């Protein structure tokens, strides 16, 4: 067999992109109150007034946009960070971002501090989001700064991230210890990650996150490929490992921070999607990135549909679903195809 052509892989990506499109309609239609497809369609073109119109436009559509966009962003970020650190187990959370975000949310929910003092101090969600974002950005600056001191090597990024993660986890545990029962409950819900809280503003912010991470990751796709054979080979191929790692880390971390601030620390999508993508389409990041995005977007949306419907009318936080179904699935993949995925 010769080289599989770029066209073939491009076609595969386009074909796979039909899945999120179908999921969009399913996600708008299904929930604690299910709306038949034809009513969804007419609501989408503006023909349905009343309760169903409100459900579709005020709740389901922003929420569906959120799951599609956040899933894609997390998956892309996972792919980029795995390539940057040459570590198949890396994810944005390896950089300590989920711990930082959770600590930020805990500050808002338990201590009642909104770090930049915007918005209604009683609006816990808004305060939790802002704090989560601010703390994540601080974590990014600290981790990339520390790694920069050590030449931006893969090890320095991962070690810096792990140290930061432990630090923030400890701080969060301390706050949880101090918290009252109600606060604790609210915080635990936040920290599991869910899409209930996303409104239109949140959906727009998530779109910003996706644009940042998609554009920058595709721009450095060839550099990510070059890095897979080590920094020396990459350098000889015209890639500057330091700059690539700096740009890639900042882009992924910043967009992950936006995502975490809106939906909480939802795990597994960022870790899993790039592996499935590589399994389907090879290791060329020009295709891994879009393919991972499609897989991530589908996984998170399916998970969110499950979150709304499995225990109807009670909602399950989507983070619980991704972890509960993601972990066994991931293990299955690990056992069946370990040589192809982990060398």
């Amino acid at each position, binding site marked *: 067999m010769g080289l599989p052509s770029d066209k073939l892989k491009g076609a595969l990506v386009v074909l796979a992109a039909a899945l999120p499109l179908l999921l969009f309609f399913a996600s708008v239609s299904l929930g604690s109150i299910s709306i038949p497809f034809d009513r969804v369609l007419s609501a989408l073109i503006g023909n349905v007034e009343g309760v169903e119109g409100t459900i579709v436009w005020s709740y389901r559509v922003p929420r569906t946009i959120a799951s599609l966009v956040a899933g894609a962003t997390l998956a892309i970020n996972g792919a980029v960070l795995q390539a940057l650190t040459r570590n198949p187990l890396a994810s944005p959370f390896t950089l300590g971002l989920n711990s930082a975000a959770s600590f930020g949310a805990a500050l808002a929910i338990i201590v009642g501090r909104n770090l930049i003092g915007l918005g209604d101090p009683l609006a816990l969600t808004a305060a939790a989001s802002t704090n989560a974002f601010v703390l994540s950005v601080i974590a990014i600056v600290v981790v990339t700064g520390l790694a920069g001191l050590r030449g931006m090597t893969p090890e320095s990024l991962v070690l810096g991230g792990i140290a930061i993660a432990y630090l923030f986890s400890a701080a969060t545990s301390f706050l949880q210890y101090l918290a009252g029962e109600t606060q604790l409950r609210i915080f635990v819900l936040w920290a599991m990650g869910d899409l209930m809280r996303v409104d239109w503003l949140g959906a727009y912010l998530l779109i910003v996150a996706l644009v940042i991470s998609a554009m920058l990751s595709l721009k450095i796709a060839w550099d990510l490929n*070059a890095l897979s054979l080590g920094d020396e080979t990459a350098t000889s191929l015209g890639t500057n490992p330091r700059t690539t790692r700096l740009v890639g880390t900042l882009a992924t971390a910043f967009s992950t921070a936006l995502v975490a601030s809106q939906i909480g620390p939802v795990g597994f999508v960022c870790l899993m999607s790039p592996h499935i993508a590589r399994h389907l389409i090879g290791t060329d990041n020009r295709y891994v990135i879009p393919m991972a995005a499609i897989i991530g977007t589908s996984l998170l949306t399916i998970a969110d549909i499950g979150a709304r419907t499995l225990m109807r009318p009670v909602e399950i936080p989507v983070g619980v679903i991704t972890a509960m179904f993601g972990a066994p699935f991931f293990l299955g993949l690990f056992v069946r195809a370990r040589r192809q995925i982990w060398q």
Partner: protein
Amino acid sequence: MRILVEGVVVYYGAFRALDGVTVEFQQGEVTAVLGPNGSGKTTLLRTISKILRPEEGAVYVGERDLRELKEGELAKLMGYMPQGVESRFPMRVWEVVALGRKPHVAWALTPRDVQVVEEAMKLAGVERLADRYLHELSGGERQKVMLARVLAQEPKVLLLDEPTSHLDLRYQIEVLKLVRLITKERGLVTIASLHDINLALRFADKAVLMKDGLVYAIGKPEDVLTPENVVEVFNVKAALVKNPRPFIVVEDAV
């Protein structure tokens, strides 16, 4: 085109790995860089490929100072094959070789790029392995894949760090024959660090013998790789045999 290394001093932390090296490499010649472990062979290759920046001195590619060459520009001119390259991801052989085209493409591989990749795999004798995973291959096969990768880059300057270290006897000879042929055909400047002095005697146009970060001797392989020099640089007892071409027999450590 030639490569001129002029008074280069390179440090690893406080260790002076290259201690003022001056040497010139010519077009259409295979130059073997020899010397014991830690003598500065790899450091010299890393400096020429701009992976390391010299503390003093300069490297010239043709008439141009290496420092002036942009990363992308340099990658089109110069290919470097480091030792022991692996991937943590399940890369297929052709994906690895196709990376050689990176300096030449903006996004997509053109049909010509694909042709160059296939040609490079054929030259290095790895076209049968195209669909295999890199991590499933033997050390020697992997080394040939890396050679194909650097050939696919179509460089004018070919830097090879121990290109034969994992190869069996037959492929040591085949690979060096190939490197020599391509160097002549394409008019390349080829610099290869080697451990085997006899391979250098047989395949190199020029030899650079290094010791303690300095060039100890330079010139035609048979003039440089004399028993006296080998004894002095490698700390071994050696004798010269003519069979009919010169061959160094290493008898014992000193």
